[in-house]
């Protein structure tokens, strides 16, 4: 089992074009103004979203972000208060759950305890009135697909957690739904099983060609599996994009902090373009201390506007410097306050003279038992202008 850095999906590179970049492409699932309220709480707030055929789309958010409600509206268990859901141009609103060409894999798996594995998988086909021999054939096919051949006669409670998860997947796929909804598909698995299953899920998705929409609170799961991620908070979409886009170009402080770690500073736009280290992009002056942040992109606000600057710890470098060294452009000086050793990298927490903290990570490229930089060392943290992300909010 080979681990991969976040941002790279474990899927074949020859995936073909990215339809969301093509203005001509017809969306497969289209949400417009979708709203659901529970009393005074707006669980899903006027969401517009297009999802394309063959995607593995992740809805990422914390609890109460509205992601599960959105999924349940797609399945038909919740009725939207406003807005529309269309699938291949067909309006889904008046279609009850049992007539939707959409299936769902439940977080609890919801396997029927009084039926065998095969009967669980065949349940949906029986409801369609498929001939018995055909049901048996397709159930067998699904069991093979999820590598559970020979376990059809077992009861779900006689299976391990990982096996149950696969039965749930097989049961939701057997009707060949136009859309498969997955509610925290890996949430009930332990960590070691989860990683292997991520790849297997992506594999099955590509083999069956089904469009998946998955809900998760686990950013790593969303990053490694999804074609695109929608980050949700308070019933709204904070950002929609590919994992790399969302990680490298977060749209807000919330997204920057929700996916991975980010150092965030407040500042005023000094020059909007043609400035900075690389003589392109924006220059921002810190409001907290005497330093500048240079970026290679244009800022979201004109000169004089109040903005935020986000810099990821792994894009910073840390080096020893003389005590009392002044800050500069994309350079901050301070004392090492804390060190956390993770094995594959070390996280330094640097305290600036004004008290604010900066996190810097450093890969452990060499074997070190004694760290070259230690507590209370005077250090300077530097980064290049491509690492500076300027945010409006």
């Amino acid at each position, binding site marked *: 089992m080979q681990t991969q850095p976040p941002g790279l999906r474990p899927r074949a590179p020859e995936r073909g074009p990215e339809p969301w970049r093509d203005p001509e492409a017809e969306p497969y699932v289209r949400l417009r103004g979708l709203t659901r309220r529970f009393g005074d709480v707006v669980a899903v707030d006027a969401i517009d979203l297009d999802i394309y055929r063959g995607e593995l789309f992740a809805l990422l958010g914390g609890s109460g972000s509205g992601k599960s409600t959105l999924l349940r509206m797609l*399945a*038909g*268990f919740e009725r939207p208060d406003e807005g529309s859901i269309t699938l291949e141009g067909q309006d889904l609103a008046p279609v*009850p*759950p*049992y*007539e*939707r060409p*959409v*299936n*769902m894999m*439940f*977080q*609890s798996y*919801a*396997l*029927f*305890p*009084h039926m065998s594995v095969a009967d669980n998988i065949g*349940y*949906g086909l029986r*409801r*369609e009135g498929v001939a018995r021999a055909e049901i048996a054939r397709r159930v067998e096919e699904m069991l093979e697909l999820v590598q559970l051949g020979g376990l059809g006669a077992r*009861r*779900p*409670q006689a299976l391990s957690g990982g096996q149950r998860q696969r039965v749930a997947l097989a*049961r*939701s796929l057997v*009707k060949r739904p136009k859309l498969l909804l997955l509610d925290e598909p890996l949430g009930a698995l332990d960590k070691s099983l989860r990683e292997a299953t991520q790849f297997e899920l992506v594999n099955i998705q590509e083999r069956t060609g089904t469009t998946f929409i998955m809900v998760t609170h686990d950013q790593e799961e969303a990053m490694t599996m999804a074609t695109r991620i929608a980050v949700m908070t308070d019933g709204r979409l904070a950002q929609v994009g590919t994992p790399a886009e969302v990680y490298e170009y977060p749209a807000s402080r919330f997204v920057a902090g929700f996916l991975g770690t980010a150092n965030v500073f407040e500042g005023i736009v000094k020059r909007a373009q043609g400035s900075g280290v690389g003589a392109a992009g924006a220059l921002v002056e810190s409001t907290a201390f005497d330093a500048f942040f240079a970026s290679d992109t244009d800022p979201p606000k004109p000169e004089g506007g109040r903005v935020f600057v986000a810099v990821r710890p792994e894009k910073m470098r840390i080096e020893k410097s003389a005590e009392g060294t002044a800050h500069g452009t994309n350079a901050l000086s301070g004392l090492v306050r804390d060190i956390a050793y993770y094995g594959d990298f070390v996280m330094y927490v640097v305290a600036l003279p004004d008290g604010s903290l900066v996190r810097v990570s450093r890969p452990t490229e060499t074997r070190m038992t004694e760290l070259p930089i230690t507590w209370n060392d005077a250090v300077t943290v530097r980064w290049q202008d491509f690492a500076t992300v300027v945010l409006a909010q």
Partner: protein
Amino acid sequence: MRRRLPWLSLALGAGYAFLYLPIALLVLLSFNDSRLVTSWTGFSFRWYVALWNNDALVSAALLSLRIATVSATGALVLGTLAGFVLARFGLFRGRALFGAMVAAPLVMPEVITGLSLLLLFVSLAEAVGWPGERGVTTITIAHVTFAAAYVAVVVQSRLADVDESLEEAAMDLGARPWTVFGTITLPLIAPALASGWLLAFTLSLDDLVIASFTSGPGATTLPMVVFSAMRLGLTPELFALATIIIALVTVALFLALRLGRVASAAARV
């Protein structure tokens, strides 16, 4: 914990003794040749024979069994619907009243239930001519009404343990609401339905007060016969009757427990 609190086990033992000594006494006395409860004059089946030959008792028992079977079945249907509504329908207009009407019969003094139902039947007979004569039908309706509350409570608490996503999953896979109920909900709450039916059956079989109010001249149930016999004094025939009932209930309950254990093992995901 148990070893540190021996008096708790003692209290439990004392409680069981309090519950079972009178019952053991009934069983013992039913085999006593003597009519007196204080003297044991030998083992005998004579009271069982006397019971068998007591036509009034036997026919009352048969009538009670008939009423209990019908009313337990009615209470099962009504109570299951009510329990399902309470457990699965969320909030709807009139739910508070509905919940109150389902829970109240559990504690309502029997004399009130009995009197109020009788007055209803009398008023109905006056107003619409039905029921023309009180008897088996009116007793059955009364029993269905108060036993349904017990069934509803049993079904509701069982449904609370059944993960609602099982029913959603079935619907997601194409099952219409009634198919979901028939293929998923019903099999999963079957043990609760069995014990609910048994409970309703016993309640009906055991009821004296409500039956006395709602009965007419033609219908005399077993508790009514036993009650009037008891007022005249103890007869060992009644001890024999008690012993038979205790034996039947014990067998039925242990069977139900065994079935319940199998079913609950199957329901454990």
